[in-house]
């Protein structure tokens, strides 16, 4: 299970870490199983705390980020591009 989660979450774990984390994850999943007792037949899910309608924005251009801000926090940069090692097909 944990290897699949690591892959989905793109989060590699060390050996020790993995063991402890797996235990914790199992414990938490076990702890929340209590919810199965609740009868939710015919109950709609809450996706947002309050019912409201989505406001729409007019299609008018605004201000983009100034050049000096774009790459300020970037570790890999080449000219005007963000640069990273090539992805290998997984």
């Amino acid at each position, binding site marked *: 299970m944990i290897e699949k989660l690591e892959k989905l979450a*793109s989060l590699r774990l060390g050996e020790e870490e993995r063991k402890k*984390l797996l235990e914790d994850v199992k414990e938490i*999943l076990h702890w929340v199983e209590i*919810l199965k007792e609740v009868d939710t037949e015919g109950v*709609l*899910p809450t996706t947002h705390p309050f019912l409201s309608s989505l406001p729409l924005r007019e299609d008018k251009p605004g201000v983009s980020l100034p050049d000096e801000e774009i790459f300020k*926090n970037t570790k890999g940069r080449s000219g005007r591009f963000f640069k990273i090692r090539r992805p290998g097909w997984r």
Partner: protein
Amino acid sequence: MEIVNLFGWEIKEKIERGEISEKEVFDAFYERASSSSLNTFITLAEGREEKKEGKLRGIPFGIKDNILVRGMKNTCGSKILHDFIAPYDATCIERLKKEGGVILGKTNMDEFAMGSSNEYSAFGPVKNPFDPERVPGGSSGGSAAAVANLEVPIALGSDTGGSVRQPAAFCGVFGLKPTYGRISRYGLVAFASSLDQIGIIARTVKDIALTLEVIAGYDPMDSTSSPEGVPPYSKIIEEPCGYKTLGVPEELISGCDEEILNAFQRTLEILQRLGHKIVRITLPHAKYYLPTYEIIAMAEASSNLARYDGVRYGLRVEGESAEEIIEKTRMRGFGPEVKRRIMVGTYVLSKGYREEYYGKAQRVRTIIKEELEEALREVDFIITPTAPFLPFKLGERKEDPIKMYLSDVFTVFANLAGLPAISIPGGRINGLPWGFQVTGRAWDEENLLTFAYHLEREGGWSLRQ
């Protein structure tokens, strides 16, 4: 009286009357914050912005390090953002600045607001001002401790499951979580988007009211912010409060520590003496609040934290391929609690388990919401202790996630239902602060703050030393 002892609104009035200058105020708090031994701030401002008139003129603010202040570091208490400089102001910061508020610094916090003790910060734990061997609560522990320790008169925090109220209780100050959608979340680093709300911590309700009236209100940058009108809270709270009916949910608070329960009982008696009515209410699904909250919070968090991949900003650990870089960056950048939550959150959303866990929690959330709304038709407020136990020792709960999650057992319901709630300092037990929580109806911060303000003045809960 020393400057650092002043409330925020007093500072503003004194500046306006010319009794003190903005510089004196800033320097006094800066001096206190920079010499603090509590590890409250991750970053302190390099200088004061130009002085400006306004409702918050000259008042220094501590800002939790997950609310972006342009040009300042915004670490979220995480290694993955340890050097990230915010490229823009959060909407609430823009509004604070516009009314003359001054940013003193960015306060320490549990990594990505995940935690209840501040021990999960990559920048070291914050210490409780009442006992440095104990935790200040979390995740807005830096904000609460800084206010309690007079390092700043008012601080902003974020509250996903109690992260403003619980540390406020642990540090003996006031902490408000407004209604979901009351304050724009634009510029608040997301933990769980359907639960997150910016909150305010101060030593008087009046400062909270004043701050709220400045930063609340619809923001076109946040589609979940509400167009609901924002009244002038700082004036309204001075009006008579009237007698209120408060509901005590017995099932919910039954697991509380004895000493807290006793103190809470005495509080209820004082409230009755003041003329308020105390009634028992039933919340049949109380035991499901915490698990429901954790599933939703972790699921949303697993998605919200996916953007930290080292490609555009933040930490990058190099590797042979893009995939390897992303995996390694996240491995080194996130701490154990964050990883735990990401893993559980990923699991409850994954194929085959989504309905069983996440879908179920969303449906139970509907039941919980209705149950609370129903209760609030009967009573004006729901009252509980803010946390089930006193500030605990550093290290006591750190390794046991579920024990840590129990800190939020009384606070998560307000987030699940989007309700406004305030933690009021209840005094001391064995020299340690404790707090009680009053929860109101959605959008009714007005009555909630008025009630809290009257208690502060008449109930003997004032923090003026």
